[in-house]
């Protein structure tokens, strides 16, 4: 072959290699993403099991006034901001909140007036998140913010909300959702959910702990609770992070097991698809019995339980921030009914539970307003929420005036059993070995919001 052809072919290969490099950069931009966002695994979990069937024997709670009369008149506008981008879509949360508000509107609204949820989305762009908040507050002039779930929104907008007198009821991911005065999440977030999973493994008697999570900004924040609890119990630890999407699940599973060592425990903090890859790889390599396994809330989905078959039955402890969707209890039954009637395409699971609960709490607060329902009265009502009892949480939700809020700091452990998630441990307190939890408990005891676990 002539030299010209050889050189020409070599140039072609180099140019194609350059194109491939650009492709790889594109992958790095799009693929190093996590379904539940920048907190590393996040605390949301999607469930694909669909509507589970009959509502249950216990009578469902009512939507709002529950009088069957359609609301009319000028709507009460509320706003929500959710992350929506390839690989991360939290809009299910706001849509479930909207579904609940529709039910409320069919049952008398808020003292006769319908609730309208204005939904904005952002794509992990600070400018976009700030613009969404500004639009809700200054253009839409929403009376309250309910249903926010975003990778960055708390960090970007919390000061803006504080300056404008908004008290946000949402589901948190980043530290600012749990460490600022104007945000009270219904969930506990990845840090505390990982802590709960860690506590489960310690109770199981592990000799060493390995935390493995997705490699995104916020991993140090998330492992803080894990390290604090392990240190208090005298259990050695190892922290690992993996780029997502995981491309060699077998190797990752092996690495986690080797890090934990014999008699050790592995805590996973990933979105359901990534956690499933690792758990299946572990099962295929016979590793499910080599160590004890635990996972933060995203693993709490019947779909994951079904996909795992029986390989991890009773061998995987999943920290569940909310009750199982299968329980027969008033609020949970109402939740299932609302989804069935108003949002049948949204599956049962943690995300829709968050949205439902946020809307329910907000509705309850607004129904207690005497006089005009406007921005001032709505946010005053949100701020004064105290002792909101629900079967979806281990203890009552509250807001109040405090420098930080983690109202959901007690939860359960569930485990896969024959294709669904079943309760393994009943309500337990997230350890106050972690400083933010201790601070919140002290505030709860001072303000009368502390509810001991029975």
């Amino acid at each position, binding site marked *: *072959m002539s030299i010209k*052809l*050889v050189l020409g*072919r*070599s140039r*072609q*290969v*180099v*140019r*194609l*290699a350059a*194109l*491939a*490099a650009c*492709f*790889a950069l594109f*992958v790095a931009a*799009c*693929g190093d993403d996590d*379904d539940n966002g920048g907190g590393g695994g996040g605390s949301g979990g*999607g469930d*694909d099991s669909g509507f589970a069937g009959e509502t249950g024997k216990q009578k469902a709670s009512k939507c709002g006034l529950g009088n069957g009369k359609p609301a009319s008149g000028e709507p009460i506008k509320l706003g929500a901001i959710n992350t929506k981008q*390839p*690989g991360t*879509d939290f809009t299910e949360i706001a849509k479930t909140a909207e579904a609940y508000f529709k039910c409320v509107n069919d049952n008398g609204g808020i003292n006769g007036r319908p609730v309208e949820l204005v939904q904005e989305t952002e794509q992990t762009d600070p400018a976009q998140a700030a613009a969404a908040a500004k639009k809700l507050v200054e253009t839409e002039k929403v009376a309250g913010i309910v249903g926010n779930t975003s990778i960055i929104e708390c960090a970007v907008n919390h000061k803006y909300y504080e300056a404008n007198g908004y008290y946000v009821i949402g589901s948190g991911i980043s530290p600012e959702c749990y460490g600022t005065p104007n945000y009270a999440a219904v969930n506990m977030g990845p840090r505390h959910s990982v802590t709960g999973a860690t506590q489960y493994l310690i109770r199981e008697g592990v000799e060493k702990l390995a935390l493995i999570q997705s*490699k995104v900004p916020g991993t140090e924040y998330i492992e803080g609770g894990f390290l604090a609890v392990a240190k208090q119990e005298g259990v050695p630890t190892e922290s*690992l*992070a*993996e*780029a997502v*999407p*995981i*491309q*060699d*699940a*077998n*190797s*990752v599973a*092996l*690495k986690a097991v*080797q890090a934990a060592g014999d008699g050790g425990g592995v805590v996973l903090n990933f*979105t*359901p*698809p*990534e*956690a*499933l*890859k690792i758990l*299946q*790889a572990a099962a*295929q*390599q*016979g590793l499910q019995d080599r160590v004890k396994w635990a996972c933060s809330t995203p693993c709490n*989905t019947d*779909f*994951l339980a079904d*996909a*795992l*078959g029986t390989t991890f039955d009773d061998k995987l402890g999943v920290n569940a921030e909310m009750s199982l969707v299968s329980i027969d209890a008033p609020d949970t039954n109402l939740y299932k009914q609302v989804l069935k009637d108003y949002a049948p395409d949204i599956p049962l699971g943690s995300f829709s539970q968050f949205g439902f609960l946020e809307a329910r709490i907000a509705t309850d607060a607004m129904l207690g307003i005497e006089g005009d329902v406007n921005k001032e009265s709505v946010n005053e009502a949100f701020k004064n929420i105290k002792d909101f009892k629900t079967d979806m949480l281990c203890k009552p939700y509250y807001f109040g005036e405090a420098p930080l809020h983690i109202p959901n700091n007690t939860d359960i452990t569930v485990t896969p059993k024959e294709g669904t998630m079943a309760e393994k441990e009943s309500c337990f307190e997230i350890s106050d070995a972690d400083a933010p939890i201790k601070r919140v408990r002290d505030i709860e005891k001072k303000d009368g919001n502390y509810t001991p676990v029975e």
Partner: protein
Amino acid sequence: MPSWDDFQPFIVTGLALGGVYALSGVGMVVLYRTTGVLNLAFGAVGAMGALIAWQAINEWGWAEEPAYLVCVLFGGAVTLLYGLIFGPPLAGRDPLVKATATLGLALILLGTMSWIWSDKARSMILPTSTESFMVSDILVNYTQVLGLAFGVVVTIGTVLFLQFTKLGTAMRGLANDREITATLGVPVRRVEASAWLVSGLISGVAGLLLSNLVGLDAATLTFLVISSLAAALIARLSSVVVTLVAGLVVGLATALATPILSISEYRDMAPFVLATLALLWLSRKGHSISGRAV
């Protein structure tokens, strides 16, 4: 530094994945040599085939074997269709343009998969993944064996095919000089169509295997083509035997870096680091292995 015992299980996972990278790489090299197209949609096609198989088994109640066959045939059909429609009009264009066009197909398929199946957790376990045997203290499942075996068998089969069959000879002729080959009466379009079809069938098989070795996730499977691409580039998009070796090396290097915690987080760079080093080395040596049939 991890002990030898710690490394051993990673050799198994590395060889299994490497085998599939090699398999995919061979499919890409054969197609490139015949048509001049670097198919960046290779992974996306396999991913969609695997998801269709999942849909058939889990939602439509099909038996597993026909669903797996559909996955493979889907790979062949979509790739062939693309080649028939876009191959001729792009035939005279620069290879960079032809490769970029396949990127369009990859993105369309990726968008379609996200739209139909979203990014929820899914699982499709091949029967071979549930059967295993012990090698020393290491559990090896038969899907891992298949991954390596397919890579080797398809490479050997491709070498023999290119050397000893009429169609293979025609493909080599096209790779060397398309115009002269055409003037000799070789049915160029038919030969190219065969290459598209075979490459697509291989992508279907790779998609099935990777759905078990890695996970059934559209984005992950789509972008795994990069590791296969690295193997193909190391082989200068020319030699299928070098592609096999390179694929195994890429798989092993990536896996063996895993237990070394100081470099573990950088192991995803391994395919491109190896490809870059190989290309630099070959350039320094001043000769190209391109143009050789095997």
